[in-house]
């Protein structure tokens, strides 16, 4: 048991972090031209070449052969720089293709030839992926594949299957949202959760992205509080501000520790991994939203300006939190509630 990254893992994280700081810094999103995944799309071949989309996928199916630990390190950095969920869709899509035996499709995704985007289904039907559904596509372009999931499994579909229309920006205008409707899903690849619980992996990687937001907003607040002066003192020396920052540090660290735990438990298919996936979801989304809120408050009038980065993190945090699906599923998993029977882990 060791929850700390190895030297190799730290090296991977640093190289990811360096690339993102240089090529996709969060501040890019103040310019509309870089939003809606445009910047990511321009760098897509490079992102694929860096191996990010296959980082945690086994070598025998074309992946890089690392594990969930490396995946969550990657997506935490993606969260810190507000990278489009396209990367998440690509990572998961490649695995769906590989697991469903479509090695050729997996290769095209992993090499960057076939971009994948997320198709969020707010209320998946019981028959998913064979029934009708309404989806919200994120940062989609015409020739992309769409990745959708419900608790029963994860599917890749052609965008052409959906009657789509652009949607007014919601909470996060830096994401391009298209609504789509299909009367009948015709997935090009399908991985049921009994084969591999990929929806749980999606939840873990979303948590990692939210931890990235929680950490980025903590760092912004601490940095601002360390140089901004009022009443002749650095504002970080005022207890109200200092304690906000301490709370931000606490929730970010706890959320990260639990997301790491959940990732490792999922990879080892530990008996209780579902409750850890739910716990990391709750902790990471609360940490992201609360830290973003406090980051705005610490910045005062500056924080209420769209010129400050803080609101970008707040808005992305809300958008990512939606993708987890109904909160009640997380509560049930945490309380081991099945068919009205309380099923506590043996003590």
């Amino acid at each position, binding site marked *: 048991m060791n929850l700390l990254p190895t030297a190799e893992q730290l090296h991977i994280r640093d190289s990811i972090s360096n690339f993102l700081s240089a090529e996709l810094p969060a501040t890019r999103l103040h310019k509309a031209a870089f939003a809606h995944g445009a910047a990511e799309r321009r760098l897509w071949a490079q992102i694929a070449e860096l191996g990010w989309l296959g980082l945690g996928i086994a070598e025998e199916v074309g992946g890089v052969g690392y594990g969930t630990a490396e995946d969550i390190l990657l997506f935490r950095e993606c969260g810190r720089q507000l990278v489009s969920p396209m990367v998440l869709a690509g990572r998961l899509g490649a695995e769906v293709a590989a697991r469903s035996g479509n090695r050729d499709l997996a290769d095209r995704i992993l090499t960057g030839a076939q971009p994948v985007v997320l198709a969020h289904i*707010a209320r998946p039907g019981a028959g998913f992926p064979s029934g009708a559904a309404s989806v919200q596509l994120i940062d989609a372009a015409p020739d992309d594949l769409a990745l959708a999931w419900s608790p029963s499994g994860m599917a890749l579909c052609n965008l052409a299957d959906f009657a789509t229309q652009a949607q007014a920006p919601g*909470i996060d205008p830096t994401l391009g949202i298209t609504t789509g409707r299909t009367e009948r899903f015709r997935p090009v690849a399908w991985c049921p959760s009994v084969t591999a619980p990929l929806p749980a992996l999606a939840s873990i990687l979303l948590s990692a992205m939210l931890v990235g937001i929680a950490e980025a907003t903590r760092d912004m607040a601490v940095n601002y509080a360390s140089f901004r*002066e*009022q009443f002749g003192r650095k504002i970080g020396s005022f207890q109200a501000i200092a304690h906000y920052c301490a709370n931000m540090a606490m929730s970010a660290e706890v959320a990260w520790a639990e997301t790491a735990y959940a990732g490792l438990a999922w990879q080892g298919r530990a008996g209780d991994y579902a409750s850890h996936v739910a716990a990391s979801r709750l902790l990471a989304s609360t940490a992201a939203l609360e830290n973003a809120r406090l980051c705005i408050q610490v910045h005062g009038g500056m924080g*209420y300006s769209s010129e400050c980065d803080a609101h970008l993190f707040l808005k992305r945090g809300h958008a990512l939190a939606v993708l987890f699906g109904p909160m009640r599923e997380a509560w049930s998993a945490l309380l081991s509630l099945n068919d009205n029977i309380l099923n506590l882990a043996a003590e």
Partner: protein
Amino acid sequence: MHLEFTAEENAFRATAREWLVANVPRDKRPDDGPGTREFDLAWQRRQYEAGWAGINWPKAHGGVGLPSVHHMIWLEEAGRAGAPPMGTLSVALSHAGPTLMAFGTDAQKAFHLPRILQGASVWCQGFSEPGAGSDLAGLKTRGVVEDNCIVVTGQKVWTSHAHVADYQELLVRTDSSAGRHAGITWIICDMKAPGITVRPIRTIAGNHHYCEVFYDEVRIPIENVVGAINDGWRVAMSTLSIERAGGVAGHMALEKELNRLIRFADDNIDDATGEPLLRDSRIMSELAELKAKFAGLRALAYTVVSREESGVPGPESSLLALYYAELLQRTQRLSMQLLSSDCLGGGSAQDAIDRYLQSFSNTIMGGTSEIRRNIVAQRVLGLPR
């Protein structure tokens, strides 16, 4: 202690309600840009022409001359009728007017007060600076007395509605050798004066409600000084305490908001249970708690008005603005939670999203909640600094 209004007050309420129902503008108020100014001025003119402007302003200053309780009744009825907020006129009506009445020269009063009441001028507040937000006394914008002018150079920030304002309540440092609170002067600044550059700032809610204002040797006539030169801190503090009491007006808007939310929770079905969201004990209890806090807010506002009537100052007005800001923010946060599954793409959730984002300003603008708590601790409770 009594809750009943007098027969005269009830009659005033009835008349006000009748007039408001017939006269409240039906078209949607533009929330951004110059249209906002024109809309707000038109609504103010309409009130003025019907004799409803300046209800609690003394008759000598062109007001109706009624007590605070009438003003509160008016605000309640305006809220109930869905009347527009004071909006861009808020500084003029709630700060500049009362400040001029207390400290202005006869000439200043004669010129400005009628324009404010008649809906002919928009004011903004030039107090905060990049280095002086919570710490207002740290302001550095320089005012040099030259001939019959004060020549102003410097910068203000977070100035609401500066891009559509005619005049500004401007604080400048006219004596930098004096203490932090001494050496500050309060002047009326004509926003069309040469040397002023206004840059609207986009807020996180996407509108342009506030601005940076740059002053490059702006010459302001010395007769525009309100109070005495170097006595501006005292004048400004009196303005700020008026602003804090202004929270009384907020409670009707909040009630509407809360009722909207309760109705939403009653109209919408929880997928997991097939019951209205409102039947979910978690949502029920949170909405009930907000309703209770709202009731407390209104009772506190009534206490503030009672206190104003008695003329004896009390602790409630400092608390009111703080409580209102945090309750409004919490209400909007719950609203976002209820709508969260729909917030990815705009549609029906867009209004709630906008109000949620706007509510972040409530605990920042006009004094952060942290500064307000300091004030309660030190001035109301007498705790040591």
